[in-house]
């Protein structure tokens, strides 16, 4: 993985993380926002401009890819590189959580 990508996406913003996480299944922009709302009990909303901007950036950087079009909406899915980033983030967040609980972290 190239260092530039790593520098931009690790750590990630909360919106970025949820978008990438949701794209483990093919989904379109508005669909992601609805899913995130549900997952966070309405605490996190991702607005239209932020959604479009994040999707285009992630597509350009190769974290997600266009899969197909459904009812005029573009569906995206995570790529191999996206998975690598997501796993780095998951490990980081897990460590953060364990440390906050005072558990031992042996990494």
């Amino acid at each position, binding site marked *: 993985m190239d260092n530039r990508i790593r520098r931009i996406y690790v750590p990630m*913003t909360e*919106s970025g993380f949820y978008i990438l996480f949701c794209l483990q299944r093919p989904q*379109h*922009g*508005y669909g992601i*926002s609805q899913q995130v709302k549900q997952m966070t009990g309405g605490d996190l*909303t*991702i*607005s*239209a*401009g*932020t*959604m*479009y*901007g*994040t999707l285009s950036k992630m597509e350009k950087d190769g974290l997600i890819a266009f899969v197909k079009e459904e009812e*005029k*909406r*573009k569906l995206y899915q995570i790529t191999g590189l996206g998975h690598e980033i997501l796993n780095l983030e998951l490990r980081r967040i897990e460590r953060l959580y364990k440390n906050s609980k005072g558990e031992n972290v042996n990494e």
Partner: protein
Amino acid sequence: MNNRKTLIRFFTISDYEDEEIWLRSQHQKGWKLVKMIVPCFYIFESCVPRDVVYRLDYKNNTENHDYFQIFQDYGWEYFARCMGWLYFRKPVSETDTEQDKEIFSDNNSRIDMVNHIVKTRMLPLICIFFCCLLPNFIHSIEEANSFADVLTVIFTVLLLIYLYLFIHCGLKLRKLRQKYSGIK
């Protein structure tokens, strides 16, 4: 037609937040924006007074059809474009939260937009200034005839307007970026 009116109002590339507020207040008074004509003509149509949020996004023609689809899915009505800016609106009655009235949900995306404006509008203006306006200005000062004197006056006025606008936009964009970064 008396159900239309044209207002003249000049907003620079750094005044989009003021423009949004102004357009909202016009709609509250029963005038909805139909289109703009460069540089400062706003054409309104009379309508039922209503509280409608207006939002401007600067894309400089980089948007695609999925962009409009996403905004439509979020309940935004796209109704006009002007000089790289896209105009959206949404009735307040159709929003549940404050966030529903925004097109950006984090400051990173707001800063991205400011940076996009600086890169595609401010930088070309600097180039025009140094490559075109300034050399012509110096050239017209050096020439000594009455035609050149007229040119000098014209260039001086242009140069002053240019400088004023440039400084106004530069400072305001910087302030916006600071506001979004939480420095203020």
